[in-house]
Each structure stands twice: as C-alpha cells, then as structure tokens.
C-alpha cells in the first residue's frame, strides 16, 4: 500500500521546521567556539548589539539572570558529576560549543552580528582521542574529576577467567569503530513563541521525542511541563541525531521568553556536521577462547569509548552501555566479561545514531568468529552455526540479563545460504582467485534488541507508548500516537494497524503524531521501537474499542464480528449511537468511541540478580555480502547483498524493505566513505558535504530482502526493523573485504574501508601492485 504522507511530500507541501513562518518571526544565530579548549577571558557584545535589526545578544550570564537553569546528565556515581549551562560559562571544550546567542530580524543579520562579537579566548591544550585523554599528565576537561575518564564499569559472568585459561585456543585482537554522523538531510532546528498572557511556551522542533523534550525544556526554562507545548512537524530525517534534547532547543525557548518574539534557529550544514552529535568511536580489546569446533567458550572485551565533550542531556554514555550488553548477540557464548572506559575529549559530543552502540558490539563478535574460522581453516558460516543460539529455550537469557525471544536462527541461516547462493559465491570466489581477482564474502548473523530502555540510567526513557484511538460519529477514525515519524511512514503503518484491528479501510484512518498537545505523554521514535511500542498501543486501543463496538452492535440487534471487516452500515449505526444516543447503549458500556491506551510489554524490569533485559523484544537479520576489491587502488565494489529478515509481523512489506535499503546505504557509507575527522589541535576537518561524503545514487546497489517472520509475544506481534541494516553492514563489509584480500594476508581491524585505508592494509603485507595501477589510485585520491 503506498504511503498516505507521500502526496504532500511529493508536491512540496510537507511542512518541515523552516516552513512555519509567522508574523514577526525573528531568527537566532549562535557564536560557537572556534577552539577545542580555551578559557573565555571576555566577551564584547557592543558592536553586535547595536547592529540594525538585532534584538538581543545573550550570554550565559544573561540567561542565568533570566532564570535559565543548567542541564545535567542526571547520572549518579560512579559517573562523574556534570552539569552545564545553555551557553558556555568561562571555558569552552569543543569547537562548536555555543557561547553567545543573537536574535535578529533576519538570519543574515543575526549571522552578521555573530561576526561582530569579540570573544577573547585563552587557548588551552586540546584533548583529541581517548589515548591522549588517558595519557599521564593529559590536560583535563574537568579538573575536579582528576581524570578525563567519565566512567569505568565492569561486568562478568562467574567463570570468564577460568574458561579463558582453559580454552584450547585463544584470540587477542583490537577492533575499532570510527567516528561518523547520522546526518539527516534536514538539519536540526527549533522555533519558539511565548504567550505571556497564558504563560505558555510553544516550541516547534525537529525532534524525535517531543514529550521528553517538553520535560527538558520546561526544566531548563523554569516552567511547569503544562506550560510548554512541543510540536514536531514533518521531519527531514532523524536517525538518532535529533534524539538528544539539545542546548539549542532550550535556548530557543529561553530566547522566546526573554525577547517576547517568535523566533527560529535552523542549523546550517556546518553546525550540523561539527556541533550536533557524532557517533560510534570505540576501540575494543578482545580476548576470546574457543574450542576445536570453533565454539567460543569465553569472550572478554575491554571497550574504550570516546564520548567527546559529554554535554548531552542523556549522556552520550548510552550507546556504550548498549555495546557492553550486546556482546553475545545471537550467540550462545557461555562466559562473557567486559569493561568500559568512557572518556571525555575536546571534540563534538558523541551520542545516538541508528544502531546506538550495537554496531560496535556486532563488529567485535563477527570479527571474532571470522578470525576463529581463519585460525581453524573452516568456513565462517560453520563457525556461526556452531555458536548461534539453539532453537530452544526461549527466552534465552544472556550474560547481561537479556531475554532473547527471537525465532529459529538456524532456519534463517539455511534460508540465507539458499537465497544468497552462498556456496555458488564461494565457487565464483575460487574461480576469480585463480584469475588473479579478489572476491570476498562477508557474513553478519545479527540478533538485535529492539524497543529498548535504560531504566535508572538514561533518565526519562520509559518503556511505554501511548495511543488515543477514536471512531468519530461519521465512522472515520483518528489515531494519535506518542511515537514520531521522521520519514519512516508511520501515518501509513499505524493506519494499517488500526484499520486491520477495527475492520475498516485504511483510508478511513487519520494518524497524527509529534504533538504534546494531543496526548498526555509518549516516548518518541528511536531504538527500532515505533511499530513494537506505538503499534502495540494502537492495536490494544483498537481491540478495546472493537469490544465496545461489538457490545453496542449486539444491543442494537446488529452483528459485528470479533475479527475481519465490519459492515459499514453497522459501524455507522454503532458510532452514531455511541456518541449521540446514550440511552440505547447496553448497561455499563462507556459512552462514546474513544480510548487512550498506555502500553508496555513489561519485559524490561530489573531482575533479582541486578541485571536487566533492556529490550522488549528482539529481531533477527542474517546478511551476506559479496564484494570485489582492487588491492592496488583500494576500491571496493559490492557485487551482491542479501538480508533474511525477521522483524515479526510485517505490516507493510514495502516500508520494511525501505528501512532495509536505507540502512544498507548508510552502512555502506559508514565503511566506504564517511568519517568525521579532527586535526591534532581539535579542529573539525569535515564541515561540508564535500569533505563528509555520503553515498549517492551511483554508490548504492540494491539489497535483496527476504522475510522470514516470527511473531513476537508483544501486542500485534511486531519486532522492529529500523536499525538492523546499519548494525549488520559494517561487520559484514569488513568481513567481506578482508575475505577478498585474504590471499594477500590482509587483516582489517577497523570499520574504515576507504581506499586509502585498504591500500595501507595491503601495503602492510608487503604486497606491491603494478605501478600503473598506483598512478590511477593517486588520481583517485586527488579526486576525492
């Protein structure tokens, strides 16, 4: 079924953040730190403040005087204490940190005024990368911590050390995931207006979680939550990048209150690239013990995570905590131990991006299995089969307390082998090798936690979702839901779910999301949760209404079946009676046809041993890719890719495929082109889309998708799908490229598969290409 949202989006009638002009709208620009680490010795605003068109020039001191409150990560020890004001006070700790806000009649004038500010910085030594941060004598971001380590945590099953010591074979490796950015095509932004008579702040924000944003903005602005309404309009993507509750959103609220003007901040691309949220940088030191059959008997992973400057409302620690809980994935590793050293550096804050800590964990587990296959000289597929969870029991309890409820993984691998043509690809690979070409196959056998939460750690991320479903007197249906579509097509998905449950056509259903004025609370969209949680809430509400409809129909002498389509005349009679003729309702039946449901599957409560299942359910995705690599130029060509996917009950196969194709493209971008880089002095080197290159239509082949659904036990049977492709792909691609180059002895231990990285890995083996090919590679480099 095509999407209902498409007609407006195709014709330019979508209303994104910057499409909400109102009379008297003013614009906000921020002066951001130009240095990675510096003391602010003084700020001279005089020239900026007197520029024609400028309404306000605001510093941290002005905000404090106006009643703004600092934000904090809301974490208890052992996390280091940390709070921060909306604008930097006395010291800046990353390039891009906001220092001064300007409000002016136009964006151009606001930016002119920023140029006129005189901010006197006293430069301090930068801290770039975890190694520099943890070196003895390193400059400290927060001297009161006495270290740059934001937190050190450890966890382990009882027998890791013994199992490692007794293991027939050992493997010790380091694997790195490099820094990237989610990069929605519409950058972040917010628009605020203050109604002094009602004491009401309205904030339009391109935000994935409007209700939690309301909580945070109310707190920062010193307002009651009831005094703030947050509206998330059409969004030009999110991917986690719009999940954090940013200083800028709170600033827009405060500036609207302080100036009394409606005003908008709309990030430009450079702000988005250098001063929003980066993701992924982790190094894993892995120690694995395994037996002669390739079964892992123990895995120990020491994770070092670069948090950047950790001033994110729910701290950037979230993804790292997911990483250390997801190290066994869909595998029956009997003993797992981990440590996490999360380190602050003077770089952009690190936080959420589609996958949220799982890609890094998955990289390590898949790399370990590939390396075991190499060591034992067996097929990496067989090593996976030896380690995958057995078909029973379910749930399978993991080392970290996970209650994995996935389907039969071995059956999915069988499908992967058949549909991908695994053995045929191995045959082609052998032929190519004998012809001097380098083909490789990479595997990812992923079990992904979905609909997650981190109770007691990431504050204000509950595991519930809210939906209000109403059958109106004319028998049309409205659905309001607390999730927030960023382009996934929720208007269509939830309409289909509601229509199916109520027995009406999907065209009868209108879906609304992204408005705190419509629903008491909601949790937004992230963590592959929307269909599981929002869909669960919608289906539960519809089932309740349908029971009421059936009771009313029976009382009227009409027939309304428990399932399947409902006769239009019967529905019309029931709806009209419910709203307009209460004396004809059966005794005890609630009048009207509207209900609000707050739904939780209830599977993520802490258990007695202190562990917690962090995911309401789990989806499974078996991926294989075939690549050809030119060792001379380092170029990688994807020849084929296939995913066997179990995301539970599939509501709309086209939209699920769209999620897979899109995540596949982001995964390719992640490894083949994208990297956020910094100079040694902490200056961002990627400030435009010309130096942070995302895939184009020339770069992304088609992913083949095969569905093998197993309904979950959640209401509706959904499992979630949004992040899977991006979790799976880096691991699969690194495996494939290394496999292609294995005759040369190439080993790849990072997610960087850019041509220079591959050439460096090839050079490290001593292999030397034909000089003409090197010349071509040089041209390629200059072109990039």
């Amino acid at each position, binding site marked *: 079924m095509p999407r209902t949202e498409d007609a407006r989006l195709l014709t330019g009638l979508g209303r994104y953040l910057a499409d909400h002009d109102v009379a008297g709208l003013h614009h906000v620009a921020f002066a951001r730190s130009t240095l990675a680490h510096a003391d602010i010795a003084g700020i001279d605003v005089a020239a900026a403040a007197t520029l024609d068109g400028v309404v306000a020039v605001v510093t941290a001191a002005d905000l404090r005087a106006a009643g703004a409150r600092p934000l904090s990560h809301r974490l208890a020890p052992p996390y280091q204490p940390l709070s921060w004001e909306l604008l930097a006070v006395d010291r800046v700790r990353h390039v891009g940190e906001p220092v001064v806000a300007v409000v002016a009649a136009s964006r151009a004038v606001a930016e002119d005024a920023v140029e006129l500010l005189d901010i006197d910085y006293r430069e301090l030594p930068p801290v770039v990368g975890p190694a520099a941060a943890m070196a003895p004598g390193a400059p400290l971001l927060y001297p009161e911590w006495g270290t740059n380590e934001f937190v050190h945590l450890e966890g382990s099953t009882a027998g890791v050390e013994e199992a490692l010591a007794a293991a027939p074979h050992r493997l010790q490796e380091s694997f790195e995931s490099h820094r990237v950015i989610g990069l929605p*095509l*519409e950058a972040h932004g917010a628009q605020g207006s203050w109604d002094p008579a009602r004491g009401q702040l309205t904030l339009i924000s391109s935000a994935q979680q409007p209700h939690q944003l309301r909580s945070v903005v109310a707190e920062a602005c010193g307002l009651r939550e009831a005094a703030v309404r947050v509206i998330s309009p059409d969004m030009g993507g999110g991917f986690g990048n719009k999940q954090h509750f940013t200083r800028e959103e709170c600033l827009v609220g405060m500036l609207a209150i302080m100036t009394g003007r409606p005003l908008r901040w709309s990030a430009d691309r450079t702000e988005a690239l250098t001063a929003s949220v980066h993701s992924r940088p982790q190094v894993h030191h892995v120690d694995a013990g395994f037996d002669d059959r390739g079964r892992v008997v123990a895995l120990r992973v020491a994770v070092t995570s670069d948090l950047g400057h950790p001033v994110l409302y729910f701290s950037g620690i979230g993804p790292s905590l997911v990483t250390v809980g997801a190290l066994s994935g869909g595998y029956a590793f009997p003993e797992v131990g981990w440590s996490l050293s999360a380190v602050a550096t003077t770089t952009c804050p690190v936080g959420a991006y589609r996958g949220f800590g799982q890609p890094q964990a998955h990289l390590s587990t898949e790399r370990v299995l590939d390396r075991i296959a190499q060591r034992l000289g067996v097929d990496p597929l067989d090593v996976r089969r030896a380690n995958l969870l057995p078909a029973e029991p379910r749930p399978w309890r993991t080392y970290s307390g996970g209650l994995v409820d996935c389907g039969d993984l071995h059956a999915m691998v069988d499908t992967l082998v058949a549909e991908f043509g695994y053995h045929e690809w191995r045959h082609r690979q052998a032929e190519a090798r004998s012809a001097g070409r380098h083909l490789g196959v990479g595997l990812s056998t992923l079990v992904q936690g979905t609909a997650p939460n981190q109770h007691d750690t990431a504050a204000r991320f509950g595991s519930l979702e809210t939906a209000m479903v109403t059958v109106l007197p004319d028998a049309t249906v409205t659905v309001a839901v607390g999730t927030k579509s960023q382009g996934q097509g929720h208007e269509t998905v939830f309409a289909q779910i509601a229509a199916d449950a109520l027995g009406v056509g999907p065209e009868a259903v209108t879906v609304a999301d992204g408005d705190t004025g419509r629903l008491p609370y909601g949790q937004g969209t992230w963590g592959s949760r929307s269909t599981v949680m929002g869909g669960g809430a919608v289906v539960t509400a519809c089932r309740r209404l349908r029971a009421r409809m059936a009771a009313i129909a029976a009382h009227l002498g009409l027939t309304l079946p428990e399932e399947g389509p409902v006769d239009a005349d019967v529905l019309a009679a029931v709806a009209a009676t419910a709203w307009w003729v209460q004396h004809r309702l059966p005794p005890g039946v609630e009048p009207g046809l509207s209900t609000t449901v707050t739904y939780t599957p209830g599977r993520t409560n802490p258990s007695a041993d202190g562990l917690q299942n962090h995911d309401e359910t789990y989806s499974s995705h078996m991926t294989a890719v075939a690549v050809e690599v030119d060792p001379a130029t380092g170029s990688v060509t994807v020849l084929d890719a296939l995913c066997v996917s179990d995301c539970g009950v599939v509501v709309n196969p086209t939209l699920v495929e769209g999620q897979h194709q899109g995540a596949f493209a982001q995964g390719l971008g992640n490894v083949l082109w994208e990297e956020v880089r910094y100079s040694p002095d902490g200056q961002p080197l990627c400030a435009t889309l010309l130096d942070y290159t995302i895939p184009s239509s020339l770069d992304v082949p088609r992913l083949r998708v095969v569905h093998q659904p197993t309904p979950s036990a959640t209401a509706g049977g959904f499992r979630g799908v949004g992040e899977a492709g991006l979790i799976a792909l880096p691991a699969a691609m690194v495996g494939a490229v290394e496999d292609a180059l294995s005759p040369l002895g190439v080993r790849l231990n990072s997610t960087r598969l850019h041509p220079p990285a591959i050439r460096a890995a090839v050079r490290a083996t001593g292999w030397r290409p034909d000089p003409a090919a090197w010349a071509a590679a040089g041209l390629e480099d200059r072109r990039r």
Partner: protein
Amino acid sequence: MSRPVRLTVNGAPASFDVEDRTTLLDALRDELGLTGTHAGCEQGACGACSVLLDGEIVRSCLLLAVQAGGRTVTTIEAVGSPGRLHPVQEALRRHHGLQCGYCTPGVVLTAIDLLERVADPDEEEVREALAGNLCRCTGYAGLVDAVLAAARDAGPGR
C-alpha cells in the same frame, strides 16, 4: 541594500526586493512563500534546493536571487498536486522512492529534467542523473525504480 527583482515563477510574474546577497533559495522561500524548495546544505552539494531556471536544473542555493531577474523559474509547487500527481511523482509514490521527503522536490525536478532530455534512460543514466541529489533515507533503490518506471510509462515518442 535591497534592489527589485522581476522574474517569472511557475508561469506567473513575480517580483520582490532583496539584498544582493540573498540566494534564490531564500528569495523563493522567504519572499514568495514557496517552501517546497528545501535547504539541505547551502553548499551546492546535496541538490535538495534544485529548481528549473529557464528549463535547466540548477541549485537555488548557489544562485543569487538577482541573477534570476528576467528569467523563468519552476519550483516543485508547479509540478502536480496532491490530487493530481505528475507521472514522476506518481511513480515515486508507487515505488517507495521517498521516505522523509526532504530531498524529494529536488529529485522530482531532476527526474523531470532527465526525462525531457532522454526519452528512454537505462538504469545507469538514471543513477548518473540523480547523483547530485543526495538522499539519506531510501538507499536510492525505490527512487531509481520510480524514474525508470516513469520513463517506461511515458511510452515512446515522449
């Protein structure tokens, strides 16, 4: 300093006073309220702001509004309507060639431009034509399918 600009937008005369530094993108959005043209990067890299200038596809973020004086601009607002989609729009809808929709107006205009020039493009030509329109959501599969289908449905002699 502002100066007057007169041009034709979507078939009708239009005029506004803008500073010399105002981009065509900003003038279309702020002066004429045509918000279907989107600012993706304002650096000429992403193609979200694509419009037709005298029938040729251009990036409105890289042009000054004053450069459009006396010329003809076509934006997404002139292409189809929700109740009557252009064949390219209909094909994008049918083939799930959009998700968030932010790049979509630029994609629609680029695809129309391609089909004006090449009656029967193959997949490679479609991918080449769309290479300047970055999409972060779809992975391009549905988008390429849609443009190929639109070309096919338009039939020979187009």
